[in-house]
């Protein structure tokens, strides 16, 4: 069953809200581009993959109308089916404009649930990482700059509490308090983001399965921080690869 957050977001996509599409593309764009380039095996140029514009995606937003939760399709599968369909549309348009762009709706359904678009484990992991990054971005926007800087230095840069305290001219207990505040906020946001971008219960529980306990628990804090740092470093690598591919002529 889809949550209110998910249906609300999908509703905005269906209403062609450009900001919702931008949000979707900003969060999952690099993963989709990387997956499509991988499938293309070098046959699909970086330029074509980059050209999967928001408008092209928006034109396919009604794919969700045919989404049947009972068939167990995941959000990640739906996302990939749309992106792939857009890619074909783009190629169709370029290579044979007279044939008409796009494909029939029935074909999209087949892609949505068919073997061809079944995503692999690395793709699923990348989608999960993108969700964590989206949650962290939300927290960054909401937090006080100093507070988030403490979290960034301590968790993402791997500094000790003492180093952070010295650099920022605050006490170590203050570092701990601010760190805990950002961590708590991140847990709350993580639940929201996971719910928003999940079609199945299995997807919604992904965070806990990957060491990100969303219920505040002091014993899990270190593991939680470590998992976030690891994910963010991988995301950085993914985006760097995506940029390198885009820059390639």
């Amino acid at each position, binding site marked *: 069953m889809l949550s209110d957050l998910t249906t609300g977001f999908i509703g905005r996509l269906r209403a062609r809200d450009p900001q919702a599409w931008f949000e979707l593309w900003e969060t999952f764009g690099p993963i989709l581009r990387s997956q499509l380039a991988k499938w293309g095996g070098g046959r699909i140029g970086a330029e074509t993959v980059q050209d999967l514009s928001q408008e092209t995606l928006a034109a396919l937003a009604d794919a969700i109308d045919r989404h049947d939760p009972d068939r167990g399709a995941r959000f990640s599968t739906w996302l990939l089916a749309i992106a792939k369909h857009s890619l074909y549309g783009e190629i169709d348009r370029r290579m044979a404009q007279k044939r008409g762009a796009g494909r029939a709706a029935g074909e999209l359904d087949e892609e949505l649930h068919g073997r061809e678009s079944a995503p692999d484990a690395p793709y699923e992991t990348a989608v999960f990482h993108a969700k964590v990054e989206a949650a962290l971005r939300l927290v960054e926007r909401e937090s006080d700059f100093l507070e988030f*800087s403490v979290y960034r230095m301590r968790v993402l840069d791997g500094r000790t509490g003492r180093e952070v305290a010295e650099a920022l*001219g*605050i006490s170590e207990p203050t570092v701990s308090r601010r760190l805990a505040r950002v961590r708590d906020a991140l847990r709350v946001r993580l639940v929201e983001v996971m719910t928003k971008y999940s079609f199945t219960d299995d997807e919604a529980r992904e965070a806990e399965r990957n060491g990100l306990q969303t219920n505040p628990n002091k014993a899990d804090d270190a593991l939680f921080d470590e998992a976030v740092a690891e994910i963010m470093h991988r995301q*950085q690598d993914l985006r760097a690869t995506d*940029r390198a591919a885009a820059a*390639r*002529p």
Partner: protein
Amino acid sequence: MGGVIVFVVTAAAALLAVALAGYVLWKLLKGISWGIAGLGRGIGWCVRHVFELVAGLIGDSLRLAGHLLTACAYLPVIAINILLGRMSAANHYGSALESEVLGSVNCLYRLAIGHVARFLLLGPMVEGFERRMPDVIARAPGPDRPSGGANAFEGWKVTGSLAGGGSGGKLWLAEPTSEKRRELIAAGRACPEKVVIKSFSLEEGSTLPQIVRENRALAAARELGLVLEHELTSSRFHYVMPYVPGEDLGTATARLHARSGPMGLDDEPLRTAMGYAADLLVTLDRFHRAGLWHKDVKPSNILVADGRAQLVDLGLITPLASAMTLTTHGTEYFRDPEMVKLALKGVKVHEVDGVKFDVYGAGAVLYSLVENSFPVHGSLSQLSRRCPEALRWIVRRAMADMANRYASAQEMLADLRVVQGAPDPFRVRPAELPSLVGGQDVAAPQPAGTTPTAPATASPRTTDRFAARAPRRRLRRLSLGRGLSRGVLFSCALLLMLPLLGTWFTLGVKSLHPALVALRDQASSHKDQVVDAAPAKVDVVSPAPGGVQTYEPVSLDHLAPPAPAIQPRTPPLGVVLLLDDLPDTGDAMLGSWRTGLADGLQLARFALLGAGATQDDERLALTGFTAAQEIDLLAGARAAVGLSDPSDGEAARHLATWLGAQDQRLDAIVWIGRADPQQPVHKRVVARKAEMAERVTRAIE
């Protein structure tokens, strides 16, 4: 007993031997199956490799045939157009033919070399031809001379060309002729040895929107004194700027990193990099003070020479107070994603804080200086190379969310100066930066290149100061009990105060009235003081202007589809063109004065051209002109007055001459501007008839 032991041992040995044999057999089978699978994979790879070669050869053969057939189809079309004298159409089909021929050459290359090389596993060897070379060719400068030859621009001798950017214009390197040199010196202006001429020619592929956008950039460049001269003719628009030699910051950064090694910048290159960033911030601050938003801050738009960095490319410059809709123009990774979101929302430029978007760009440039890479992760990008902690802080603060970002380039510069000026930048703690200490006075502008001094070490405890900077959060930190008790106390006090407040309001307001009036008068006098407009001067078009340079009327209408004739609903008293040469500094008083001037004219029943984007259809319907004609008129009038201000009588005569050559429906021009920000605003009325000039003058006074 012995027999039993022998039996047990024998049985155990047999079992062990069986297990061992089974294990060996299992490993053997596994090895064989792995070998078979590997062999299968190898055969599969070979088959796929051959198939890729065959498919590539077939595909490219078909493409080659397609290109050749299409090219053959274009040939008669080109010939027919040449015979009919339709040279523009012939050029168009000629370009299409060129692209088909290029496609054929690519196919031939792939058939003869590319596919074969990849089949022989020599793919990396041909990468240079297939990837790097097209990029280099695409970035190569064009021909060394414009279509009109080396003397195509009067007063300047073209000596070469530069690679153009994305604005659609061509960049020519030129030197002033001896006459031009004398003319510039006589006018008391600096005469550079070399200049860059940015030229847009409709005949050479530039488009009308590009010219209009660049015209806005020109106005900005004029504000900053970067333009020596400009000209707009019926087919070409160009302007001349002093030439800034040097290499782009991306190349300079790569060189700095090559000197330092993979761990990051050494001390000296790090100081050089900080100097470049400081130069950039000084320039940005200058732009922002002039009310301008650069909008495309990135390494390739920064030129470095003699250890100094200079921001160039004015193609996207936008007045901060512009009423235009925000666009997503800019460069990914150096453009704040928030700006894209706002642009998608359809907000206006003046509704956003453009300064902060430039600050984001400056932060991204500083990141690229330190990392020799792009900030691919936006504000969450990791700084993994050698970098002082305080400098990391500056980068992150500049790229933070809008609410947490530096409010100005000057604030960021103040922080950077502290790190730059420290004997050991690695010893500077973020807590010592002025933006954290709260010493905003440290941010006073300093000329680029001067050595700033590091401030005294800050207090080690800045927690309270942070709290003071975030009152909202401090309130949140109050415990529920304390908050509740404060709330109760406040409510009781308010209840007690209510009757007193009521009495004061009833009895006191009337007595306060004169004070309010005085306050209003004071505000009003302040308004007059800020604008300080000089009385309007009047020029009437002379019936036979002699000895005055004439300006060819510009018409770009043939580029736009014919607009339906617009019938004015209320016949106006006359049509007035507002030539507004005042900078858009975002000054509310100046803005309100401008609005007042336009309102005065409209109240006197004049229809206005060039009076902003609001209610365009209605406004234009009254004038009887189309939007394209309005742009045309504004560009023509601006070309007529050049870089002068309304106090210049000679420029006013040029404007009058120009008006005389225009459509009779245009009755008058109101030209407003000032020589510099310290001077009063000048108003100049140029009209066809004395009576009209008098009416317009009355309306604006």
